[in-house]
């Protein structure tokens, strides 16, 4: 995994192979499993409420999910945050996707996450295809083109999914 640099964030092709499955509790109390998202493009998004860039990025992720209308699943994972901190944050910044609690960093470590925020873009078979180790301008992404880019990943850049 490349370290986050000072340059503008771009989605990078992921070459690290498959990531481990997970099941985590959500702030609503139920468990969420990665496997349940199979069949759609999935954004696995690691964040913390104390991380300022993360706080600003979450509403853009929510807008992307809304535009996608079910074709893109967002799983947001709060890393080592106090439950109440996460609950309070989403009272004032509501989102429509599930918020998972990685209380002991176990999933973040298994996925080799060093930077918050970090987002993995998985295809419908749950294979990671792209990663961004920084906040990202999700408002520039066309959900339909994102799915196409994932289908063609290996030969297509994620930039093709951008509206820019």
């Amino acid at each position, binding site marked *: 995994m490349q370290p*986050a640099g000072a340059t503008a964030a771009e989605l990078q092709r992921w070459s690290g192979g498959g990531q481990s499955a997970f099941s985590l509790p959500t702030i609503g109390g139920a468990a969420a499993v990665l496997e349940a998202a199979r069949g759609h493009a999935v954004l696995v998004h690691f964040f913390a409420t104390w991380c300022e860039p993360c706080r600003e990025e979450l509403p853009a992720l929510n807008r992307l999910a809304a535009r996608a209308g079910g074709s893109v699943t967002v799983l947001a994972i709060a890393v*080592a945050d*106090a439950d*109440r901190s996460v609950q309070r944050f989403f009272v004032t910044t509501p989102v429509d996707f599930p918020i998972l609690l990685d209380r002991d960093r176990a999933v973040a470590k298994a996925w080799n996450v060093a*930077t918050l925020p970090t987002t993995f873009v998985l295809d419908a078979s749950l294979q990671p295809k792209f990663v961004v180790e920084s906040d990202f301008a999700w408002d520039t992404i066309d959900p339909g083109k994102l799915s196409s880019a994932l289908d063609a990943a290996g030969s297509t850049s994620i930039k093709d999914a951008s509206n820019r």
Partner: protein
Amino acid sequence: MHRREFLKAGVALTFAAEWPTLAHADVNFDPTPGTWRNFQITTRLEIAKPAGVSQAWIPLPSVNQKDWIKSSDSQWTTNGKAVLARDLHYGAEMLHVAWAANEEAPVVEVASRIATQDRAVDLTKPGKPAIDLTSADRKFNTMGTELIPVDGIVKQTSDKITAGKTNEIEKVHAIYEWIVENTFRDAKVRGCGIGDIASMLKTGNLGGKCADLNALFVGLVRAAGIPARDVYGIRVAPSKFGYKSLGAGTEVITKAQHCRAEVFLNGYGWVATDPADVRKVVLEEPPTNLAIDDPKVAAARKTLFGAWEGNWLAYNFAHDVALPGSSGPKVAFLMYPQGETGNTRLDCLDADNFKYTIKSKELTAA
């Protein structure tokens, strides 16, 4: 209600209101052992909106080192059930309080007494060869923890910093200087670490407070094979040397938590260090944002390698602490009171649900 009697009697409570001013051209930062000071620390904690069974864990001073700190007993009052608990690995003591679901206003108040004095060691004088650690203690204090790994990028960084250094003091001093020189927040760095020192090094985001900077120092020293440990505590009085940034300005010390670091040097024993406080002087000492060669910074930088002032108490040395009775995750360190209600971990910024105040009073013989 549980009570334990204080060991000492006949004391008057005062708080040192004097606040010496640090003259720019007259920096005399010279902690000198010899004068013990006694303090009473009182923590009051409330869970304002209980949602079922509630619990709290309050760190208690549990470090006893004959040359710089003595922790006495604590006493408490509560409408819950309170027991003293001790971390099995590090000996960190805490008051564990549990309240039934029908308790509408969970509250606990605990008072602890400690005595502390300045620390200083002259590392230019030869040490005493007999002062050494057991192999078990050496192993314990050089191994990695959840947030302080000592392999990978931490080891690589430590090796680079200590390259060419031939003895322990040179190596540790090189790491201390590296922390002072390199830790700051770089506005160009994007994102945050996930909370361990490896992620700080990977992201290049070397900003942080004591729990970040001194943890990085400890990890780099441990990675060099030299015993080191974080010491988690709280400032209890102003600095008598005039450093506004290195003391508690009022009797309310709720936000004055501070961790320091010790390294074990053969021949000298556990030695006081605090590179994070050098960076605090740079950032916060009036007029703030001081130059690295400012006399106040230079004095702190020189002094805090081998000495610190006894206006601070140590709670414990503990990492990765499991809170008894909780099914939640371990806490990285136990420096702040912790709470849960309805099996939900609270946090200290949650003013609507979790309130606590910590006060310090210096005790003087009547």
